[in-house]
Each structure stands twice: as structure tokens, then as C-alpha cells.
């Protein structure tokens, strides 16, 4: 048994697309430009990044659906290009959204079919399917056709399917997309329970709170490369040495905002409109207390609540991704 569940070295992937028929134009898009990562057995690992950053491409290379254009990857010690059968026996794949199920079949029949495909022995199938239906709380509706299921139910059925053959490594690609808050919380509980039983989970998500709560380590991927990697606490340090000041205001002008950006110690300033109010967010170096300067700059503007807080994981994520965006504009990349 390999000590790492997932190992990737210099993983790259280019997509070639051809547009035009009479005069074909070839375009190459580098979706993933060299990803290195190692995930230990039983770890719950998060992969975060903006849309089109290369998350799904990375996952598809790791789960054998795509062959990398460069680099190599191993799952439980087996190469994803040459030892596909061994890899596939050990992985489960769940993605968000409501496609990917046979609508005309019941939940039970969907599971029966994939149990057959994923090589669950005939003797075990019935028991295993029963267990999983119970785990994802679909027992009772299990003989209804999937076409009548809600999004949350489909999502849970996806997870049951991914777990049929007791995979050692589970890829969860944005599982909570479009799921209501209560269902999402239950989903997080299910994922946490899985990790507790020793399954390695690679999770991609857009919800920072979800990643913060679940993941032991997180990699932020943007522009096809890993930009930061560490525990949620370590990542938060990217926004470390910063403080966030939030000011509720009514009638801040653009000139005032520009002036605030030039204040000593201010790193970033942004403005959102919430209802009738504007919310001014100012990230500053922790060494400076910018509050007095900011309020002075807003002289004459009616102000509401003023709060100073520690940066969250989301602030850190925004800082990392923005840094990349400043270095080079992110191209439109196929996800």
C-alpha cells in the first residue's frame, strides 16, 4: 500500500480546438500548467479556484477520464495512464448538478446498474445498495423514478453511486452546487463522516465556509497552477498581517474611494451596495490603524456601523486570486 492516496507531479493539460471548417484554425488552450500535489491516505483535501481555473480538468486527469499532456499522477501508487483498471477500482467520482443519472430508472436500479459496472460482487449488491440508500436517506423513495427527484435528492444519489464499490479515494467535484442550505449542511456531514472512516476525499467547491469547515488542507488553483497550499489557518495568513475595516455609509463618491486607496497602509479598498447602504471594505496592514484616516476621508458622508475584523478564509482566497489576476489576465479557459 502506497503511503499517499494521490500524487501528482507536473500535471499539465492542453486542449486543442479547431474552429472553422473551410479554413480550420487551431487554438491551443492550456487548462492546467503544471500541478504538483500529494494527498495522504484518509486526508480531506480541498481544491479551490475560480471558474475555469483548471479544477475539473485536474480531477479528470486524476480519475483517468483524461490523459495528461505532461507530468504524471498516481492514485494509491498506480499510474493513472497505464494502470487504469487498478485506479478505477479504487476511486469514486461525484460531480454536482443534476445530470449523470438515468432519469427513467429508480434510484435502486441506477445503483444496481453501476454496482454491476463497478464490479460489486452479486452477493453483496443488495445489502450494499440498501446501506447506501439509508446513508443518503433515500430509502422510502428508492423505487421512484429519478426524473421526479429534487436536486438535493439527485445529489445524494450521486454520492451513493460514488460509494458503491467502497472507493479508497473519492473525488467530489462541486457537490453542493445548487443545493439548498439545509441539504448542503447534511451533505457536509456525510462527507465528514466518510473522511472519518478513512476514505480519502478530494473536494472542489466554491463555498469557502464549506472548505474551511471540512478540509484538512486546501490548494488554491488559478490560471492552471496551484497558487497556495496549506491548512485553512495557514492560508488565512495570506491575508495575514492585514485587518479588514468595514464601514456602512450613504453617498460615498468615487473620488473619496480613490483617496482612501492612497492612504498609507491601505492594501485594497472596495465598495459593495447592500440595500440602500454602501459597504466600504478596506484591507490594511495590521501595523497601521487606518480607521481614523478612513473616517476623515469620508468627512461629510452619513455613516452607519463601523466594524474592524480579522480576515476570513474568503478574504485570503480573494487576495490570492486577485494577485494572480494582476500578474497576468486570466484567459478564458475551458473548464
Amino acid at each position, binding site marked *: 500500500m502506497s503511503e499517499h492516496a494521490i500524487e501528482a507531479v507536473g500535471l499539465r493539460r492542453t*486542449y*486543442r480546438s479547431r474552429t472553422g471548417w473551410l479554413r480550420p484554425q487551431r487554438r491551443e488552450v492550456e487548462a492546467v500548467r503544471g500541478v504538483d500535489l500529494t494527498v495522504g491516505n484518509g486526508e480531506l483535501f480541498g481544491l479551490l479556484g475560480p471558474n475555469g481555473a483548471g479544477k*475539473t480538468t485536474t480531477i*479528470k486527469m486524476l*480519475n*483517468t*477520464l*483524461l*490523459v495528461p499532456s505532461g507530468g504524471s499522477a498516481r492514485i494509491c501508487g498506480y499510474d493513472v495512464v497505464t494502470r*487504469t*483498471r*487498478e485506479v*478505477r*477500482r479504487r*476511486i469514486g*467520482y461525484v*460531480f454536482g*448538478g443534476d*445530470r*449523470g*443519472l*438515468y*432519469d*427513467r*430508472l429508480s434510484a435502486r*436500479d*441506477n445503483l*444496481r*446498474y*453501476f454496482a*454491476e*459496472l*463497478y*464490479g460489486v*460482487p*452479486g452477493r453483496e449488491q443488495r445489502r450494499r445498495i440498501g446501506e447506501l440508500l439509508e446513508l443518503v436517506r433515500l430509502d422510502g423513495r428508492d423505487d421512484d423514478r429519478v426524473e421526479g427527484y429534487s436536486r438535493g435528492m439527485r445529489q445524494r444519489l450521486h454520492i451513493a*453511486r460514488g460509494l458503491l464499490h467502497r472507493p479508497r479515494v473519492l473525488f467530489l467535484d462541486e457537490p453542493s452546487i445548487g443545493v439548498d442550505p439545509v441539504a448542503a449542511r447534511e451533505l457536509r456531514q456525510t462527507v465528514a463522516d466518510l473522511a472519518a472512516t478513512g476514505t480519502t476525499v478530494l473536494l472542489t467547491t466554491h463555498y469557502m465556509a464549506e472548505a474551511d469547515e471540512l478540509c484538512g488542507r486546501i490548494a488554491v488553483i488559478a490560471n492552471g497552477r496551484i497558487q497556495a497550499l496549506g491548512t485553512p489557518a495557514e492560508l488565512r495568513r495570506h491575508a495575514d498581517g492585514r485587518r479588514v475595516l468595514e464601514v456602512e455609509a450613504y453617498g460615498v463618491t468615487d473620488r473619496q474611494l480613490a483617496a482612501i486607496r492612497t492612504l498609507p497602509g491601505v492594501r485594497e479598498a472596495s465598495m459593495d451596495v447592500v440595500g440602500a447602504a454602501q459597504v466600504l471594505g478596506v484591507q490594511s496592514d495590521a501595523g497601521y490603524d487606518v480607521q481614523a484616516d478612513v473616517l476623515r476621508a469620508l468627512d461629510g458622508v452619513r455613516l452607519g456601523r463601523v466594524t474592524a475584523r480579522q480576515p476570513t478564509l474568503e478574504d485570503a482566497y480573494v487576495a490570492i486570486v486577485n494577485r494572480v489576476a494582476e500578474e497576468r489576465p486570466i484567459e478564458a479557459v475551458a473548464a
Partner: protein
Amino acid sequence: MTALLRLIGTGGVIAYRALFNWTTPAMFVGTLLVGPLFQLFFFAYLGRQLGVADDRFYIVGNAVLAASVACVFGGTMAVSNERRFGTLGHVLLSPRSRTAIFLGRALPYALNGLLIAVSTLTVSSLLLGLRIPVTALPGLLLMLAAAALACGFFGLTLGAIGLRFRDVWLVSNVAVALLLLLTGVNVPAAGLPAGLRAVGGVLPITHAAEGARRLVAGDGFGAAAPALAAELAIGLGYAILAAALLKLFETESRRQATLETV
């Protein structure tokens, strides 16, 4: 071994229910049972009118052809509906033999085709008054089964092609038209130019229709056996072709992301 048979058998049946659009009673009766019957009547009356050939020619030929519709469209759906449901990726993630998964899918359609062929032959013989010698029945059933099996694998080949080239229905519609035209079911093979006749020779149905006519004419099983063998060989050929194409397209897709797997 039993696990493999389970994959082919049980897996095939579930996939049939999941992917065949025409399993509702209305569709099944309308498209698969009544449709071929009208087609048969059309050609039988046309043949009578023009004096091209007798009823036996048209009834037997079209009954064999009736097996093809379910198989051709079913085979197409068996592969291409995976795209519609977005399940192809999950199927390809299976560590088990692709050949077994997909060939297992052709069997229910073949069985379906056999059922249609038998029902079409029975109903039309009764309505148009064709007498079939009782001794010919076992051989005839065998012949229809061979035709249905060959069509099932033919359909799977079309499905594989449809997987790679977007417009699936185009492929199957053209295939149905070719079968109608070139298998010698409605236009006597002797009337076709040599080139077209050669194409007909490698399509399913052609040999089975020929053999079935001999059986109904009372020529005995010996006279029809070569046709049966030819039909089976063609079925085997398409099975191999379908497996090879599926394998090729899967490999290609992993390299070039050509099958939107998710």
C-alpha cells in the same frame, strides 16, 4: 465467469430500460409493432400492383426487416443517450471490460427485434393469407434470431459512430434507408446494380431474408443453412467492429477530450 455473465445479462437489461426511449406501451405498440406492419402492407400491395413478386417475397422479407428498426434505433440510443443523461463518464469509469458492458447492451434489443419480427410475420400471414409450412417454423425462428442478433450488433456499431459524430439520428436514419433499399427485401437483389448488391451483401438482414424465403417456400433447412451461416458471420463482424470502435473512441477521448464525458 458468473460475474461476467451478470454484467452482460443483468447489466444489459437495466441499460435497456434506462436508455431505450420506446419502452412506454404507446411507443412500443405504435412504433415497433404497428409501424412495421403498415410498412409490410405498403410494399406487399405495391408489389401486387406492379407484379414484381408474390406476397411471400414481401411478407417474409419485410418481417425479417421489421427486426431491424428496434435494433438500429435501440443500438443508437444505447450509446448516445448516455450523452443525453450525462452518464457516459460514470460508465467509462468502470474498471470492467468495455466489450462486455456494451455488447451486453445489444442483446435485449436483439430479443426485442426477434419479438417484433415474429409478431409481424404472424399477423401479416394471417391477414394476407400466407401459408407457412409447419416444418419450416423452427428454422425460421432460428433465421429471425440470427437476423435480430446481427441487427443488434449493427445498431451498436452505429451507436459507436454516433458517439463520436454528433448527429446520431442522422446515422441511424441513413442506416434504416440503406437497409430498406439494399437488403433485397423490397427491391429484388437481381434488379440492383452490382455495386449496391455488394453493399447489401455486408448488411444484416440480406442473407436472413433470403434464407427465410427459402424456408417458407418449403426448400428445407439444408437449402437455407448457408444463408444462416452468412448472417451469423455478418453479426459477428459487426460485434467485433463495434467493440473496436468503442475502444478506439474511448482512447482517443482520453487523449483529446473528444467525448464530452461529463
